[in-house]
């Protein structure tokens, strides 16, 4: 969407000479590689690509991308990105944030960048913990999370990033996890979406919240616990032996068994990425009774903020001359006559 001319690059072209400073084994490495692998496939131009981040482990991301990068302040990356995109709509903007940066200190800005629909990809690395400040509970930490700031377990209810994004008015909500082979496909779909595309990426903090996503992300038994959504395809998982159906009486989703591959008979619904009602159910679908919904949950573009701003400026300027001398002398004026000089 952003780069009209496709540029030939390789993964190497997107790597910087800076030493990567994440902990060995951190899920961020896998996400970095997935992004560096995806951008050449999309034909992106490094010179027109910008990575903007806030503060936290995830926010070091721009230093490792051979693009323009801006490592800003805690929680405010969406505001910087909005200003940059309005100033130069040709920039292909990627925003990198985390659960603390994006949902705690920066929750307000995240909400507004989504509802304004500024064209950019927003990757929220959710590791359910504050990593860079050494392991405090975060707004997405599960109830009972023990941490230095919650020694007997956290008791506040966790925020749900995808539900937050959809509630804020996002027109694209995707989900993936750090080591998933499908992550590049979610990134590509987000990039193809014109508007604010929100991607929640579950990310393993091996130091402070190790393997917290193993219940669905561990390779063993993954098929039973992951629902990979594809537009126009039935919502099937567990080697197509189970599916998701809509209980039309209670207006809620249910898991059903699929016998002999006859998903239609089982009432399994077909994923329509433009169906906002179902999207609301998918982001609210609790893991445990249900599999984890992954992939593109929702994708239904509307006009972008920067297009509206450009259009407004065009309309407001129509037939008006940008003449500074005239502007300064506007309104009701009077002339003091004399010989010294003439008025403009």
């Amino acid at each position: 969407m952003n780069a009209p001319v496709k540029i030939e690059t390789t993964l190497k072209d997107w790597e910087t000479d800076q030493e990567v400073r994440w902990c060995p084994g951190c899920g961020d490495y896998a996400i970095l590689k997935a992004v560096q692998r995806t951008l050449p496939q999309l034909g992106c131009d490094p010179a027109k690509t910008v990575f903007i981040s806030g503060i936290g482990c995830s926010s070091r991301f721009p230093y490792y991308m051979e693009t323009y990068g801006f490592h800003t302040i805690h929680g405010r990356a969406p505001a910087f990105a909005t200003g940059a995109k309005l100033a130069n709509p040709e920039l292909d903007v990627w925003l990198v944030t985390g659960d603390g940066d994006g949902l705690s200190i920066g929750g307000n800005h995240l909400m507004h960048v989504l509802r304004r629909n500024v064209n950019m990809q927003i990757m929220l690395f959710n590791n359910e913990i504050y990593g860079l400040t050494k392991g405090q509970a975060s707004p997405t930490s599960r109830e009972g999370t023990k941490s230095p700031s919650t020694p007997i377990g956290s008791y506040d209810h966790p925020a749900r990033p995808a539900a937050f994004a959809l509630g804020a008015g996002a027109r694209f909500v995707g989900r993936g996890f750090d080591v998933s082979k499908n992550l590049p496909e979610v990134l590509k779909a987000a990039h193809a979406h014109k508007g604010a595309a929100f991607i929640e990426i579950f990310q393993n903090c091996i130091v402070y919240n190790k393997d917290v996503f193993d219940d669905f992300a561990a390779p063993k038994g993954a098929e039973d616990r992951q629902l990979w959504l594809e537009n126009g395809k039935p919502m099937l998982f567990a080697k197509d032996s189970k599916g998701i159906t809509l209980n039309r009486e209670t207006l809620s989703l249910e898991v059903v068994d699929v016998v002999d591959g006859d998903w239609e008979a089982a009432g399994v619904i077909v994923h329509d990425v433009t169906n906002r009602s179902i999207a609301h159910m998918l982001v609210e679908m609790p893991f445990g009774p249900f599999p984890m919904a992954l992939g593109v949950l929702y994708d239904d573009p509307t006009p972008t903020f920067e297009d509206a701003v450009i259009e407004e400026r065009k309309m407001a300027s129509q037939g008006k001359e940008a003449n500074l001398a005239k502007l300064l002398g506007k309104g009701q004026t009077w002339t003091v006559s004399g010989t010294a000089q003439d008025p403009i």
Partner: protein
Amino acid sequence: MATAATAPQDGLPASPDAIVVRFAGDSGDGMQLTGGQFTLSTALAGNDLATFPDFPAEIRAPQGTLFGVSAFQINFGSRAINTAGDAPDVLVAMNPAALKVNLAALKPGGLIIADTGAFTKRNLDKAHYEANPLEDGSLAKFDVLAFDISEKTIEAVKPFGLGNKDALRSKNMWTLGLALWMFDRPREPIHDWLKAKFKSKPDIADANIAALDAGHAYGETAELAGPVKQLTMPPVQSEPGLYRTITGAEAVSLGLVAGAQLAELPMFFGGYPITPASAILHHLARLKEFGVTTFQAEDEIAAVCAAIGASWAGQLGVTSSSGPGIALKTEAIGLGIMTELPLVIVNSQRGGPSTGLPTKTEQSDLYQAVYGRNGDAPMPVIAARSPSDAFEVAIEACRIAVEYMTPVMLLTDGYIANAAEPWKVPDPAGFKPFPAQFLTEPRGEELLPYKRDEKGARPWIKPGTPGMMHRIGGIEKHEETGNIDYSPDNHQRMTDLRKAKVENIAVPDQEVALGEDSGTLAVVGWGSTYGPIHQAVRRSIAKGCSVSHIHVRHIWPMPKNLGELLKGFDKVLVPEMNTGQFKTVLRDQFLVDAQPLTKTSGQPFQIAELEREIAKYFDGIEGNEGGEVAVNDQQLPSPIAEND
């Protein structure tokens, strides 16, 4: 010097060379509108003027109450006017509360015009009057012209079939009509304005015009008792040229537009509504054809962050607020300093701390501007002294930001933002351009985004430029590559470089605004105290005092010669609308024994109070023995004759 006018025992003098009028009423009475239109008419009549709108923080305070009083003061004359005037000669009081709140300011012998129709038992109670002051003799030392403006307005608009409540809304226009007659101002501009304002409601326009004309006719034809007679005031002798009135908020907006054009950059303005700064956002929102993008952000923080993001992407980022909003922006301003990007931050100061006095003026954000950030975070600060001066200062802020790659804070205040004065429209051809330079290829073999030029500025590299990809951020960075670098030596050097860059900004030498270059007393001001200081110093010089007025525009860095200049005076007095902030900075920078004169009442300084303070330094001057005691308002020539 003009001869002193006699106290107006028989009403006002027939042709004073300056006069102060205050319109006061309920906040729903339209006093700001009345004042604004009277100002326009006065400007068109060719008089010099200064105004002081003084209104409550509440949009519509309960009707008739003391805290709901809204006032608009204008000082106008056939001589140069620098202040909105100390004490009004004329007070228009639309209700008892307006009279009560404003009476203390009125000059003895001054004229009160009151609407008896509003002096009802209920309104008198609300204003805590036990008896009607118009009837109990308590106003004996003033001239009083009291009649039923409400009734006369209802009569005037009767042909338009409005109900009483709607009809009474035209009361301010009736009063304005009378004022226009009193001071021989033209009515036509107000007619035109009303027609334009009520374009879609011609009935309302006609009713208001009828009220205005009726007020005017009342003055012309009614057989009024002594005090009210028509005054003539010849136009001021100004420099030839084209003039208009301008408020500080307008001047800042126009200056920013001009600055962006001189830098050859589109402007990005990020704002968030706050009193008294919102007017700048409103003005700029209507100037899109000048390449201006205005962005009303979700909060003050997002407003400045978006502006910095836009600067990074190659536009001139601007944000504006008042003290509480500036506090919120502070962390981002630090990032602007760290990443060395251009940014203009306008602070229209108001009374603080916290929410403070949103609609009242103060200069108490000076420390915030100069020192108020975490870390050693030097930032240039400049201050406008008047509404028209704000235009030039805004251009100067843009110049410094672009040439030195730095955030710049521009200080105005609530008084400057709202007050209007005539402005000689400048010719843009006379402005010196300072086009922004973008680096499009490395200067040497290697790309060094933090390698400085001779001014200490790093290059500006727009994202999107091929082959120049690099990363910036708030973490300490290497002095040339800009890569993360925490090493001790590098941080020491970078701290020193940031400090040196701002210290070495070229700032014009400080000039003396009035008086000699050395002497007994220097009165040093900054910002909106210019007018009253100037007049107080002028009067003191006329009495024979060795006093000079120095007014500092460049607060940080200060003019290089300022220290030497101050050493040429025995004493230094610093009047400011805070508890002595600039005084402290002067003491720190120059080790001078600067003495404070502070005021934090939410009201601007009066000339007389400054003059009284100056007099303390000149015990023994003829006619001034004993300093303060000898100088009082009775002995001074009346401000009516003293506004040169």
